[in-house]
């Protein structure tokens, strides 16, 4: 694809036109084939539903709950992941004893633990935060370990030749060297935390977008569900954008790669 098209206002207009065409075809298709609204609602009623939900404040309230769970889970999970990952990367002994647990947990789909966690920690905020933290934990821990371990041997030797202490090697070399890996891990962890929160809400909760989706599903309000999905992807985009911004500031020296990975990651998230 040529860069002249993907850049600038012509490109933007083309993109918007394409979106409008798809929505128009969807609307026309649903009307023409008279598809029942509880199977596939037309875009017009999705947007109408979204508008009503936003005005009544019901979306905002539930989105706020889910966001809070996601942020708390993300913070808790990534902090633990960073601390544990650092301990594993720096100490053979810690690695030796934690390794069986890490292998076991890594292979397990963490969302499958959600029912247990809801049983243990109840229908409130705690179980959602813990589930989000659990799901967000692994990508960052693995990336922290790999990043800290990937310090170039020549650079380690250079610092050692100056009689640097182990901590100096950590602060001056290993940690900055791990930053690209850590940010890649944070990007994944942020979206994973959102997934963890929603899944835990599905299993059992009183508030949150997951609860909203389930009750709308129960009431055959498919248009409403689409509205929530839209809100969720906007939230996902914003969360991802926050990390990408932070990454650009911290990893200014890694600039060429930073822009590339953020583009490549988009479809996956």
């Amino acid at each position, binding site marked *: 694809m040529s860069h002249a098209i993907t850049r600038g206002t012509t490109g933007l207009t083309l993109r918007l036109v394409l979106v409008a065409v798809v929505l128009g075809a969807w609307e026309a298709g649903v009307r023409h084939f008279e598809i029942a609204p509880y199977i596939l609602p037309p875009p017009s009623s999705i947007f109408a539903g979204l508008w009503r939900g936003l005005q009544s404040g019901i979306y905002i309230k539930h989105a706020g709950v889910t966001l809070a769970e996601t942020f708390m889970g993300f913070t808790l999970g990534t902090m633990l992941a960073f601390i544990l990952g650092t301990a594993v990367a720096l100490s053979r002994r810690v690695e030796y004893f934690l390794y069986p647990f890490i292998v076991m947990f890594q292979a397990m789909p963490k969302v499958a633990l959600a029912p247990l966690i809801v049983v243990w920690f109840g229908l409130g905020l705690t179980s959602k935060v813990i589930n989000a933290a659990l799901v967000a934990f692994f990508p960052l821990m693995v990336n922290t370990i790999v990043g800290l371990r990937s310090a170039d041997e020549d650079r380690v030797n250079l610092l050692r*030749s100056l009689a640097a202490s182990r901590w100096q090697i950590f602060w001056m*070399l290993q940690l900055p060297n791990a930053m690209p890996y850590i940010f890649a891990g944070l990007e994944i962890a942020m979206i994973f935390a959102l997934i963890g929160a929603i899944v835990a809400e599905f299993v059992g909760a009183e508030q949150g977008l997951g609860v909203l989706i389930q009750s709308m599903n129960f009431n055959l309000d498919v248009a409403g569900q689409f509205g929530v999905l839209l809100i969720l992807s906007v939230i996902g985009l914003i969360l991802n954008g926050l990390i990408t911004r932070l990454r650009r500031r911290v990893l200014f020296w890694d600039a060429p790669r930073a822009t590339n990975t953020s583009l490549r990651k988009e479809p996956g998230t």
Partner: protein
Amino acid sequence: MHGTVEARGRSPAEPRPLASSTEQIAVRNLSLRYGDGADAVHALTDIDFAVRDGEFVSIVGPSGCGKSTLLRILAGLMPPTQGQALLAGSAITGPRRDIGVVFQSPVLFPWRTVLANAEVPVHVQGLNRKAMRARALDLLKLVGLEGFEGRYPRELSGGMQQRVSLVRALIHDPALLLMDEPFGALDAMTRETMHIELQRIWMERRKTIVFITHSIAEAVFLADRVLVMTPRPGKIGAVLNIELPRPRALDVVNTEGFGIYVRQIRAALNATGGAL
């Protein structure tokens, strides 16, 4: 005539003040083996030489003969498998603060500016930052990097990066400089400037320098003594005293004496089957 090529262990031509106080580096029967069993690589066998305090010694040898390995041992980065390496009379057991190392590649930190990279030893060893800042700027100017202090390594050419690593090795004014093909990535003209500057720094501050190179002419131009290594397993094949007067100017390479040294070293390399 000009110095003689001696086969190790036969001729007493090389003055070797055993255990003398002027002996800065002493390497005795040193061997190094990478790995064990069938996969073992014998990088160095029975290396034996000494470097006097304030002496400039060059080591030439074919690729893979263990020059970088020897330098890593002298820097205290790895212990020898056999034998000893002594620094000022005591065995080298680990890295020391008063050694400056220039590695074969620049080894810069991409998140540090040129200036901050040059100041790495200052940070590691907790030296006076203010005094060292002035010194860093002076040295950067000396190697032609004035105006690049705030740039990041990825904005520099390979030769410029190598010059930053040279400044970094010099900044804490170490008594001993270990240099592993430091000018390999430089163009001929910058290289010549660096030769003159290195000679000047060495003459002014009387450092002990061990300088590894692939270039016979570079070795002769810079050194008091050239050690010629054999192909792997590396040994010292010949030692040559370079008795050209100092300071040497660039056109010394056109003199007859210089040419004789170069031919002698080439002959020594060929004799051991290690043509460069």
